[in-house]
């Protein structure tokens, strides 16, 4: 056997309909090819789709939800606390994944599993408990309607164990809101693509885990040496202290300065009150502590408390940049206390802050431009920066009350109902765009357009580099850069580590080849690991093609082409449609996909 660590070679398969679970092994070839995390999830999902005779309803019992940490998750290496959730997305109808930090994935690994697969549907609302080899499905009908933290407390009470690590869904997930998330460790979310709704459709309110096992590491001595060097290097970085203080909140100023901060539903890219909602405002008036994911010295989590005013008593871990931008500037709101309230509300109801901010923004713009009327919305009126109105609409979405019932269906359902919003809702493939405007950087537009889960930034966050250094680049270089990002970043999700030491504090990719070597004992060149990652990109594309995705779906939101940026440093910017067609063609060619975007991979 080549592999000497990194895996238990055990996948826990839980059939919720039958109330049974089994453990199945996988072989070394599987581990070498798919590595873990998103890789395992994509392969398991692809196999499931291939074997299925009829089309799978993402919210039906036939969908599977795979929860998979990576081989590096939970080891002493810097920022190795990540875990992927993989499933068919109810928001997009295609492949979806979302990764979560915190401690939950580490606990799952310590319980001795490389992945957990949930199938079917429990007979009533339940909690799944995993305590090493003991698996239970505990009926928990009294949890209906509870928010994520209440559900967590209830599970602690029922199991009598304060120390379990719990991932739970809120009301939004129970109600099948297609952008509902899974929440753990207070404010760590598998935020995007509607994982919460998939869990809710399976009647699983919470998953509670306690694990006790040693994590298999091939060469612990060399791992410790590299980890120490890594931690020392992070600590010595000029931005380390600042990162600990502000974390991702430092991006608010950056995005505003660069002209990419979503403002009033991505109409503008600069917000005149950004200084009211930036990292410094947070630090000075709201921050009460640092929090970190497992094994991470960067502690980018900010615990914030509102100490005065009408939101007094609101306390949450957050916001990070995306939440602050999407619930703040994107809704024309700058009051940081309100942003904290909206962030906490989304976490408790179990809603993705990015999609929530995007959809509420589209509603406000639709009303403003009279594409929607208050009558369409059951009498609702809403304006930019209307804090109370926004908070109340967020509640309605999660509870599917009134117009909330339509909005909870996400971009696709909203456009079915109100096709006139087509130029207003910023989405790709049904997933709402993250908090970076792409009009000034065509590579970012290509990243959104070709991301396998829809308009999310984690696959290719190229906007900063293009705006800072890439203005002279040709389209070929930009297409290459997108593919490079789409290769490295998913590799992190496969290994189970966070990408922030790399993208923010300068860790070279080569470190991860060495980390993988120390943990698994397998010495493979980085290029080979990148090939594995690229293979997964082909595989998720093959899943999507099978589900009807083609070239026509690989375009950024129409605003990217049609509405020039009105002001600020990116003023006048817009992506040229012909140029986009050309870069997309190059992208396909470089990936070895045909001109309709079909990859050379079968399911």
């Amino acid at each position, binding site marked *: 056997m080549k592999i000497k660590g990194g895996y238990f070679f055990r996948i826990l398969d839980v059939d919720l309909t039958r109330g049974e679970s089994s453990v199945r092994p996988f072989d070394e070839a599987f581990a070498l090819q798919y590595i873990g995390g998103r890789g395992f999830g994509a392969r398991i999902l692809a196999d499931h789709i291939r074997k299925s005779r009829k089309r799978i309803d993402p919210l039906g019992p036939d969908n599977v939800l795979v929860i998979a940490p990576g081989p590096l998750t*939970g080891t002493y290496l810097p920022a190795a606390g990540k875990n992927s959730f993989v499933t068919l997305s109810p928001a997009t109808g295609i492949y979806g994944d979302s990764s979560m930090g915190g*401690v939950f994935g580490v606990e799952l690994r310590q319980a001795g599993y490389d992945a957990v697969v949930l199938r079917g549907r429990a007979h009533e609302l339940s909690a799944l408990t995993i305590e090493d080899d003991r698996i239970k499905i505990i009926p928990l009908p009294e949890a209906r309607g509870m928010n994520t933290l209440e559900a967590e407390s209830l599970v602690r009470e029922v199991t009598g164990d304060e120390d379990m690590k719990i991932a739970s869904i809120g009301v939004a997930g129970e109600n099948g809101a297609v952008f509902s998330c899974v929440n753990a*460790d207070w404010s760590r979310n598998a935020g995007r693509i509607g994982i919460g709704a998939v869990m809710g459709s399976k009647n699983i309110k919470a998953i509670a885990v306690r694990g*006790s096992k*040693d994590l298999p590491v091939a060469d612990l001595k060399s791992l*410790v040496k590299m980890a120490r060097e890594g931690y020392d290097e992070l600590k010595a970085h000029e931005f380390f202290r600042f990162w600990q203080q502000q974390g991702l909140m430092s991006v608010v100023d950056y995005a505003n300065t660069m002209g990419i901060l979503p403002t009033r539903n991505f109409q503008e890219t600069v917000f005149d009150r950004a200084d009211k909602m930036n990292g410094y405002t947070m630090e000075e008036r709201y921050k009460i502590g640092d929090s970190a994911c497992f*094994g*991470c010295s960067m*502690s980018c989590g900010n615990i914030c408390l509102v100490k005065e005013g009408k939101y007094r008593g609101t306390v949450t871990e957050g916001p990070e940049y995306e939440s602050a931008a999407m619930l703040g500037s994107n809704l024309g709101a700058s009051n940081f206390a309100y942003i904290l309230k909206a962030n906490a509300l989304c976490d408790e109801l179990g809603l993705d802050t990015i999609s929530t901010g995007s959809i509420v923004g589209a509603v406000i713009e639709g009303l403003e431009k009279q594409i929607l009327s208050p009558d369409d919305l059951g009498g609702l009126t809403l304006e930019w920066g209307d804090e109370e109105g926004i908070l109340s609409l967020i509640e309605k979405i999660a509870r599917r009350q009134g117009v909330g019932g339509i909005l909870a269906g996400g971009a696709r359902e909203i456009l079915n109902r109100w096709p006139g919003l087509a130029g207003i809702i910023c989405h790709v493939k049904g997933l709402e765009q993250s908090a970076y405007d792409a009009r000034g950087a065509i590579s970012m537009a290509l990243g959104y357009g070709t991301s396998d889960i829809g308009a999310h930034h984690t696959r290719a966050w190229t906007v900063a580099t293009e705006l800072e250094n890439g203005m002279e680049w040709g389209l070929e270089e930009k297409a290459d850069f997108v593919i490079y990002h789409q290769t490295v970043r998913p590799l992190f999700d496969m290994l189970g580590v966070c990408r922030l030491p790399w993208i923010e504090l300068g860790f070279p990719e080569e470190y991860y080849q060495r980390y993988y070597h120390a943990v698994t004992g397998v010495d493979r060149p980085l290029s080979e690991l990148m090939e594995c990652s690229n293979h997964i990109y082909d595989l998720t594309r093959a899943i999507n093609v099978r589900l009807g995705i083609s070239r026509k779906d690989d375009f950024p939101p129409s605003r990217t082409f049609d509405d020039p940026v009105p002001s600020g440093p990116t003023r006048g910017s817009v992506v040229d449609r012909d140029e986009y067609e050309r870069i997309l063609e190059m992208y396909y060619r470089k990936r070895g996909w045909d001109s309709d975007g079909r990859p050379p991979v079968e399911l």
Partner: protein
Amino acid sequence: MQLTVIPERCSGCKICELACSIGRENVNNPKKSRMRVMVLYPHPVIRMPIVCRQCGVPKCGEGCPTHAIYRENGIVRLDEEKCISCNQCITSCPFGAMFLHDDIDLPLKCDLCDGKPFCVEACPKEALKFHPKHILGQAHRLSTARNYAKMSKVEYLDGGQKKIIRYAREKVKKDED
């Protein structure tokens, strides 16, 4: 020397647990560490490593039927020969700072790693400190003196920069003196 905790600085990252389990048990398993980070939310909000304080009167030893717990040179130790794994010490410690694991027969007890605790070295937030005893309380003593409200002050210029010296001296002589 005393191992102390500054919970206000702790981020809950558990790197200390990892360093402890690797350093002492040679395994990557935070559940085998001789300390535990408690993370409580949303009320109260606190992250706090629970560590052994090497108590002068070790409560862990009080209920020990075989007198397996003893104190030597300021460190509370477990005599592995005498220990019968009844686990009385675990529940006797008022801080919950002794631990059990299914794979290990004996309770896990911190002994400060021969004077160089792995956890302190690894903490990225300086939330764990290993200080000589005379340092304990020093920060508070210093801040009490520095923050004394009744100090007088004198402003002066130093190379064009305005600076302040504060000092404590009675302004009015009181009658009772």
